[in-house]
Each structure stands twice: as structure tokens, then as C-alpha cells.
């Protein structure tokens, strides 16, 4: 058995065909997920039981179940119901692409809202007290004091989550989508060279993860420049 290194690198261009779909899945679900996460976060910290409870339940369900199951429930499961098949959203919900986006976004929303909540809890209480003492209202405290600091605190965990999302997009291949992993599986079926093909696609994923990490590292550095050690 020979290991065809040429095949590894030769396959990369073919894999990039799937890259477009992978990136679409990643960006769209990250974006929607972030919006969902913000809403969920506000509900979660509102203190009102009728807002907190649904938020907690949502987070619990989507963090407690595998993404694969979530995708299957939406893609294979929803068509079971007539009202879905007859409903307005059917043209969207029958497409594996939108089912994946839905599943990935809901998943992202749950995880990211917890990450943001960690950031919010990490804000020094003394700062909020000082703001109260100055007469600054609760809303203003949240916008001007809590949010900037919480965002900076959340960045490391958020970057990890984005990397997880990138990997989760590979699951789209289980519902027939031709993202990078989907393309890879097709190629393997044609060439019977699983190692070479899968390794080359893995290389692309690793490169993406590395770039995301570097990107966030730079963002973190920028946001922390006011934390230089005391000059005096």
C-alpha cells in the first residue's frame, strides 16, 4: 500500500469546491447564532421568570444533545408533521441547507449565550457600583460598562466556539450536502484512497482553525491594550 502524497495535495483544489458551502454554513449560522445568543442572553439575565425559564430550557436542550441529532430531528423529523409540509416555511425546511442552518444556528445561539453570560458575570461588581453611585441607570450601565468589558472577556471562549462551529459544518455531509466533507466522501468513494483524501480535507480544516485563532488573538490584543501594567 503506498501513500500517495501527490494525491493529498492534488485533491486540495477539488476540496475547495466544497469550501464555499462550508463557509456559507459557517458565516450564516454564526451570524444568526450571535443574534439569537444576544436575545437569549438578555432574557437569561433579565431576572423575570417568564423570560429566564424559556431561555434556560432552550440552552439546556441545545447544549445537552448532539448536533447530529438536532440536524436529524429538523431534517428527517419535521416532515412527519402535516402542518409543516403544508406550511409557509416548507420550501425552506425541505432543503437540507436550511435545515442545517437552522440546527447550527440554534446550537450556536445556546452556546454563545452562555459564553456571553460568562463574560457578563466576569465584570467587576465594583465598577457597576461606582456607576450606580454616579446615578447611571441600569440600561446605561449595561451598555457602557458591562458590554465592552464582557465582550473582551468572552473573546477566548467565543473563538473556540467558532472553531467548533467550523467543525460542526462537516455534519452537513450526513444530510447529503456537498460541503468540504461531503465532497471528500464522494472523492473517497471514487478513488478508494481514504487516507489521502481525508487528510487533505483535514488540512484545510486545520488551516481554517488556525486562521480563526490567529484572527481572534489579534482582536483580543487590540481590545486589551488599555490593560497595560501600571506605569507608576
Amino acid at each position, binding site marked *: 500500500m503506498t501513500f500517495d502524497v501527490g494525491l493529498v495535495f492534488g485533491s486540495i483544489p477539488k476540496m475547495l469546491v466544497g469550501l464555499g458551502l462550508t463557509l456559507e454554513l459557517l458565516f450564516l449560522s454564526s451570524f444568526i447564532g450571535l443574534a439569537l445568543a444576544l436575545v437569549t442572553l438578555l432574557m437569561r439575565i433579565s431576572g423575570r421568570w417568564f423570560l429566564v425559564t424559556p431561555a434556560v430550557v432552550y440552552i439546556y*436542550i441545545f447544549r*445537552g444533545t*448532539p448536533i447530529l441529532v438536532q440536524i436529524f*430531528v429538523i431534517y428527517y*423529523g419535521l416532515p412527519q408533521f402535516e402542518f409543516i409540509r403544508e406550511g409557509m416555511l416548507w420550501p425552506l425546511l425541505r432543503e437540507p441547507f436550511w435545515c442545517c442552518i437552522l440546527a447550527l444556528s440554534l446550537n450556536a445561539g445556546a452556546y454563545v449565550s452562555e459564553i456571553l453570560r460568562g463574560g457578563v458575570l466576569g465584570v467587576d461588581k465594583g465598577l457597576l457600583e461606582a456607576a450606580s453611585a454616579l446615578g447611571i441607570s441600569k440600561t446605561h450601565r449595561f451598555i457602557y460598562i458591562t458590554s465592552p468589558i464582557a465582550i473582551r472577556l468572552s473573546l477566548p471562549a467565543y473563538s473556540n466556539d467558532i472553531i467548533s462551529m467550523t467543525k460542526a459544518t462537516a455534519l452537513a455531509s450526513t444530510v447529503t450536502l456537498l460541503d468540504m*466533507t461531503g465532497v471528500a466522501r464522494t472523492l473517497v468513494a471514487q478513488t478508494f484512497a481514504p*487516507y489521502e483524501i481525508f487528510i487533505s480535507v*483535514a488540512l484545510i480544516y486545520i488551516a481554517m*482553525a488556525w486562521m480563526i485563532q490567529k484572527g481572534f488573538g489579534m482582536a483580543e490584543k487590540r481590545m486589551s491594550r488599555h490593560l497595560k501594567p501600571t506605569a507608576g
Partner: protein
Amino acid sequence: MKLSGNRLAQTIANAYTVVFRGTPELLVLLIVYFGAAVTLTAIAQSFDASIKFIDVPPFWAGAFAIALIVGAYMTETFRGAFLGVDPGLVEAARALGLSKFQTFVYVRIPQMWRLALPNFGNHMLSLMKDTALISVIGVEEIVFVAEMATTVTLKPFTMYIVVALIYLCITSVITLAVMALEKYANKHLAASR
């Protein structure tokens, strides 16, 4: 390996973590499963050319793949926990005359366990959820069984929701267990009020 001063060992260990944390779990699974099949077939063919194909038991391929992935994340957690032990404690232990090994067992490990616990719990949860992926290569775990059941009952939603609930129960149990362990590990801290 990562903590050893040895540069080569560090590089290999770093590569291991980078590869397995950057690659989708599904992909690792597929590589291990199909790759193992190809490798074993090739090895077998070198002995007996008439063998067409060796089928790797998907269960073991899956288990091995998940072990590799979780291992990569765990090394980071353990490394963090190791570095998080207060060096003052280690110094005190050595000053009292404990050997390196004794320090490791009696001072380092108890501290590390407490620090590693939350992340360890998270890894256990991910591990649980990754097992769902094994259904993709045909292992008869619950997602796979649900797929089979769907063809009979024609109610995919119900089937998969049941699967989701089962996972939810398992993850809840793990989460509660971790919370209880955390309380136990930190009881000496809480008592000082």
C-alpha cells in the same frame, strides 16, 4: 510530553493537539474507519493475496477515533491544571522533604483534580455527544437504531426526539455528577466562611 523540556516531544505533542482539535470529529471518525479498513486489508493482502477486503468493526474504529479526539482536548485541560497548581505549595512540600514523586501524588494531583474538574466534565459531555456520530459509520448506537425504527414507524420526528431525550438524560446525569464532584473537591474552600 508537552511539559517535558524536550523540544521534539513538545512539537509532536503540539502537533497532536492541533490536529485533533482542528479537525471535525466526523472527519477523524471517517479517516480512522475507512483508513483502518484500507490499511488492514493491505496488510492482510501482503500475507494472502486473495483477501478482498477486511471490515474493521466500526465500534472499535469509532472508539479509537473518539479516544484520539478527547485525548487531545484532555491534554490541554491537564496541562492547564498542572500549571495552575500554586508553585508555593510545591515548594513547601519539597522543603518539608517530600520526594518529587510524593509531591506529585500527594500535593499536585489533589490540586489538579479540583482545577481540571469543570473542563473534564465538559469533555465528558462532548464525548457523549460525539458517540452519536458513530451512527454514521453504521454502529448500532441509538441514532442508528432510530433510523431503523423510522422505516418501520414512519414517524421520524418522534424517533429522533426520543433519541434527543435520551441524550439529554445522559448529559444531565453527567452534569449533576460533575457538580457534585466539584462541591466535594471545593469543600475545603467553602468551609472558611
